[in-house]
């Protein structure tokens, strides 16, 4: 019973952390169609900004927000310099975002070095003992934050006129422009927001992982699977479902085998799922 509860709780937490990590990718991929291979580097960058700002004595909450802002600005600059000229040419944006990953990783190595950095748990203290489950405090906070971010975005997406504009644009870009929408500016906004979300996620998960230049890599592929299994454009339910499939499966499989084998197995399953439902499990069409 205790094992079941703790596995279930762990799975939920991991799912939400993974959803958080994948969210920026879901935004950019789902709304602009850019296959952002630089997503992992954006996470890493957010983690490093967080590490650095904390090192400068900035408190944790403003640090994480500033990290998100900074990565968002980097994303905006990248979009403005390169990406905006290549919308509608998915292969070129794929290569360019991959180049973004390479360049960003190298800049991180030059500026911050290659040593592993540790970000202290900002809450600290022992897990809260609920008798049948030891609640890992910080992880739980991150999971709740992930829920809040997804829910907040859902609210904007479905309940505001900004949301109407974004959804209309993804359904018919030319028509949105003919009605007066500045599509280029909207793409820029979306790209910047997606980058900022990746930066936020990177900052928030920094205390849970060793911060090093390649920390985003693993999240890149996982995030892709999350987004594609969930269904592109199915930002919210899709992302949560995809995270549950990837993160949950990994947790459960890891119980019976090695962590690495679990991960490999999950990748295999993800590829198989994509083969049979390339439009994503959650996509209605």
């Amino acid at each position, binding site marked *: 019973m205790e094992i079941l509860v703790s596995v279930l709780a762990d799975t939920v937490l991991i799912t939400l952390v993974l959803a958080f990590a994948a969210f920026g990718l879901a935004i950019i991929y789902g709304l602009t169609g850019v*296959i952002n291979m630089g997503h992992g580097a954006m996470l890493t960058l957010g983690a490093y900004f967080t590490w650095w700002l904390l090192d400068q004595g900035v408190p944790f909450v403003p640090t994480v927000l500033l990290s998100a802002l900074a990565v968002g600005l980097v994303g905006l600059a990248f979009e403005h310099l*390169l990406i905006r*000229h290549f919308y509608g040419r*998915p*292969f*070129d944006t*794929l*290569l*360019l975002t*991959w*180049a973004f990953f*390479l*360049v960003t990783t*190298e*800049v991180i*190595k*030059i500026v911050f070095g290659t040593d592993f950095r540790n970000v202290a748990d900002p809450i600290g203290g022992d897990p809260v003992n609920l008798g049948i489950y030891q609640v890992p405090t910080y992880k739980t906070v991150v999971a709740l934050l992930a829920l809040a971010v997804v829910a907040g975005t859902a609210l904007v997406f479905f309940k505001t006129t900004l949301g109407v504009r974004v959804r209309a644009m993804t359904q018919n870009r030319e028509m949105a422009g003919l009605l007066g929408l500045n599509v280029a500016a909207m793409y820029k906004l979306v790209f910047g927001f997606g980058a900022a979300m990746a930066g936020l996620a990177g900052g928030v998960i920094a205390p849970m992982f060793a911060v090093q230049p390649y920390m985003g*890599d*693993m999240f*890149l*592929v996982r995030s*892709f*699977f999350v987004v*594609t299994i969930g269904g592109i454009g199915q930002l919210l339910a899709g992302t949560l479902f995809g995270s549950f499939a990837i993160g949950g499966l990994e947790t459960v499989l890891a119980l019976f085998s*090695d962590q*690495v*084998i679990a*991960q*490999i197995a999950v*990748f*295999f399953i*993800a*590829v198989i799922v*994509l*083969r*049979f439902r*390339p439009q994503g499990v959650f996509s209605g069409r």
Partner: protein
Amino acid sequence: MTAEIQPARRGVFRREDVAALAVFLLLAAIPLATSGYVVYILPQYMLLGVLAMSLALLWGHGGIVSFGQAAFFAIGAYAMGLVMKHLTGMAINSAYVGILVGTVGGGVTALLIGYFLFSAGVRAAYFVVATLALSIVVEQTVKSFSDITGGWNGLYVDRMTVTLGSWLELSLFDDAPIYYVVLAVVVPVYVIATALMRGRFGKIVVGIRENEDRMTALGFNVPMYKTLVFGLSGLLAGVAGSFYATHAQFAHPVNAGVLFSTQVVIWVAIGGRHSLLGSFVGAIVVASLSNYLSSIEEIQNYWPLVMGLIFIAVIVLFRGGLAGLVEKLAGKGAHGRAAGH
């Protein structure tokens, strides 16, 4: 458009053949003129060149980008190492078996993955992600099964010996013999790949890149051709990997991973994705340059950054890479490559 440029290209020899001849003659002459590190290291770069060609025929001709070429290379390398290590005391030369297993292993793995994905008509983006995952899976596998693969330390591989029954036994322990053996592998690989790509098969593959729907409408089995070209690509990567392992005397997880796969993409982009020769030369030049510049302390940290920036410049400014640039300078650019991308 294709019909217009056909006559100019129909001759038995083309400019690229002359260039290829020059490149291979130069490579053949190098051990005669010098010795030492250059002769030691060049065969490895030539094999990286073959790896680059494996991607070029997929990307440049087929329009399919794979971020998993390192996986097939590693399959070749580890197959070579493991077969040579464990298959002893047999009448047959274990290195030959290793090469065969490595090559077929790379090819068959690619065929299976290609069939699995292309038959469902997965889009290019998913294919990239799937091949990226393949790289990670192979890297993680060789890292974690360390009792078999040596894990992080890599796997030691012997230099092979060329035998021909009882008539010939040539150790490849010295630099020059293995140099020429590698060259003797690389040249036919290039010639066969080039011939294939210029023939009917290559034309169909290019046709699919240009307009998949049209080729389907014309009755071509598009998934099959994509699968075949991917299989061929895996085969070439496998050959390159098996010879690389015996030359470098190790198989290592570094040569399986995502970063190594990425480097292959960069070589090909810089060399010219439409040209097998360009990719081959691109890999040799960029790999040597990287190796050289990384050994200089003042710039070693900046070199990968510069590579990344060059990569961006190639994507944005010179889509044809070096080969495209050379073609343009040679005056062919105006009408030759126009239909290229």
